């Protein structure tokens, strides 16, 4: 009798806690360098946030950092102002969010593009970029007339090798004879912001015969797209849909649906379904995809579309496994 009573009491307390939590549901997001209208990563998150607000009517507090030092301070301030669910954007915020999550065990944290942290109150969203890269690799190989395609990476880190490896696998799945030229821009973070170098690397690949160049190089990639467009060749965009950057000159873009991750984070927390750990978003989850819109419609033939759709289906069903560079730090292709 006594234990039953205690159980009841415990249930009542937890119920009370749950209602308090629901009433106190205060979501917040910290955009990273770039700001929420950056036409790229942050804007994707913003779109997810907007969708959540439209569906639930709950406003999400926002903060845009403009330099690296602000990240942790911004998170702390949002929590001081009562945020109960907090989403960080990009691996640059990993250190800040770890520190803040440790200090605030009651807040439900989420971070996008990170998978290596270990916090009981932190959910990490990671994308299977290799799967998306495989798809654009298929498209590139089918579009190429010269039999040579290119890849320009940003900073030489395993994440970017993962893009490259998936891409090569996709290309080789169409024909083993197609040559893939690969260049990394650099080994320091400035490799993300060097469009001039990106353009030169793309030019050097074009000079060696490449007619489709895929970039995974952030701001450096703007130079890649520009140079390939100027040379009358095709580029492939990354992260966000970059088809509009050079209409008719960007074959497609490998999009990471960060909006899906952002929406999922707030929606789950709202429904009380928050859990810590790593959420992998691949083709099956709609986390990565290739982009076809009015800017590249004429470039993508029905044949290419069918081949990419078939590859997508095969990856989702498990008939094709795309190699993940980060698992064994090597690329078999």
């Amino acid at each position, binding site marked *: 009798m006594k234990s039953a009573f205690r159980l009841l009491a415990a249930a009542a307390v937890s119920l009370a806690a749950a209602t308090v939590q629901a009433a106190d549901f205060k979501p917040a997001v910290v955009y990273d360098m770039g700001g929420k209208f950056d036409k790229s990563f942050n804007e994707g998150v913003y779109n997810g946030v907007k969708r959540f607000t439209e569906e639930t009517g709950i406003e999400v507090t926002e903060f845009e950092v403009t330099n690296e030092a602000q990240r942790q301070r911004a998170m702390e301030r949002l929590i001081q102002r009562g945020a109960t669910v907090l989403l960080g954007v990009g691996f640059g915020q990993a250190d800040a969010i770890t520190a803040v999550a440790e200090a605030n065990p009651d807040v439900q944290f989420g971070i996008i593009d990170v998978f290596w942290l270990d916090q009981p109150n932190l959910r990490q969203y990671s994308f299977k970029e290799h799967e998306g890269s495989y798809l654009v690799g298929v498209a590139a190989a089918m579009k190429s007339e010269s039999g040579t395609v290119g890849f320009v990476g940003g900073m030489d880190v395993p994440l970017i090798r993962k893009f490259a490896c998936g891409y090569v696998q996709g290309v080789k799945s169409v024909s083993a004879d197609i040559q893939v030229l690969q260049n990394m821009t650099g080994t320091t973070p400035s490799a993300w912001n060097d469009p001039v170098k990106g353009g030169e690397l793309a030019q050097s690949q074009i000079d060696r015969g490449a007619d489709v160049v895929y970039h995974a190089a952030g701001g450096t990639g*703007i130079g890649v797209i520009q140079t390939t467009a100027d040379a009358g060749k095709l580029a492939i965009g990354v992260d966000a849909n970059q088809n509009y950057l050079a209409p008719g000159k960007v074959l497609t873009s490998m999009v990471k649906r960060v909006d899906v991750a952002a929406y999922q984070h707030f929606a789950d927390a709202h429904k009380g379904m928050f859990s810590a750990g790593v959420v992998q978003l691949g083709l099956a989850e709609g986390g990565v995809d290739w982009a076809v819109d009015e800017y590249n419609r004429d470039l993508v033939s029905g044949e290419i579309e069918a081949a990419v759709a078939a590859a997508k289906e095969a990856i989702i069903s498990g008939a094709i496994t795309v190699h993940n560079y980060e698992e064994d730090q090597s690329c078999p292709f």
Partner: protein
Amino acid sequence: MSEFAFQILLTLDATLRLATPLIFCALAGLFSERSGIIDISLEGKLLGSAFAAGAVASVTGSVYMGLLAAVGVSISMSLVHGFACITHRGNQIISGLAVNILASGLTVTLGIALFQRGGQTPTLGPNERFQPIELPFADALAQAPLLGPVYDELVSGHKLLVYLAFIAVPLAALVLTRTRFGLRLRAVGESPEAVDSAGVSVPWLRYRAVIVAGILCGIAGAYLSTAHGAGFIREMSAGKGYIALAAMIFGKWRPWSALFACLLFGFLEAASSRLIGVEFPIIGEAPTNLMLVLPYIMTVVLLAGFFGRAEAPSALGTPYVKEH
């Protein structure tokens, strides 16, 4: 023409493109330092003017307005530097560093405020960028043996500012060695007392020198964002100002030698981006790190091994205090 020779030609072509901002910056540094003002703010001016060019070209739709804005911004940054170290006799390194930090922060902040793209300017359209200039007969001559491809690939088809850079070098040499302004400028860097006793204002000469440096840096910045690139991206100068400074020292504060140094740096950079990932007979695939560090290693080797001591202007870095 063999494939190999053609690749070399394309690498040389890339060399010209990559060396252009270095040439302008090195000449800018040369004018400033020949007058006795150390100019490590080349980097900041390059970045600031690249932003100005990108932003103004994007807003007005005119590449020349962008160029004008770039030069204007660069001159005003030069004047800030000049005000600190000519008028107030401040430490020239510190002042230059301050300009660099200012440019790095201000461009991103203004960029976010103006365009909401994380410090980038919008991608520039055809009218907002310098277009390649095809020299006459390039197509017709392309088929001619040997010289045809050289003319077509290497000489023709560059942007206006590239040609301007190669005109600027003899012009700078002429100004420095043949004009009254140039001779006085060099004198003020060697022995300001002598210039002063001849009744010529030392501060005014030095101000004119940093203004010339501002103009040249402004053109270099405009080249980065509106000719070589297609828009401003944060930190896009990526150390080119410092490399130009090194090239100028390497060239012993002389225009022609500085041009040679800039071309060398440009060539090493062009070659390194073309060699990454290429298979070599014995060592296999060229490692990324080695290729990227090659220009710097070469600098050290050349500077230490071949060219001996670089003689700086004697009054470099010392503010001039008029004796009463």
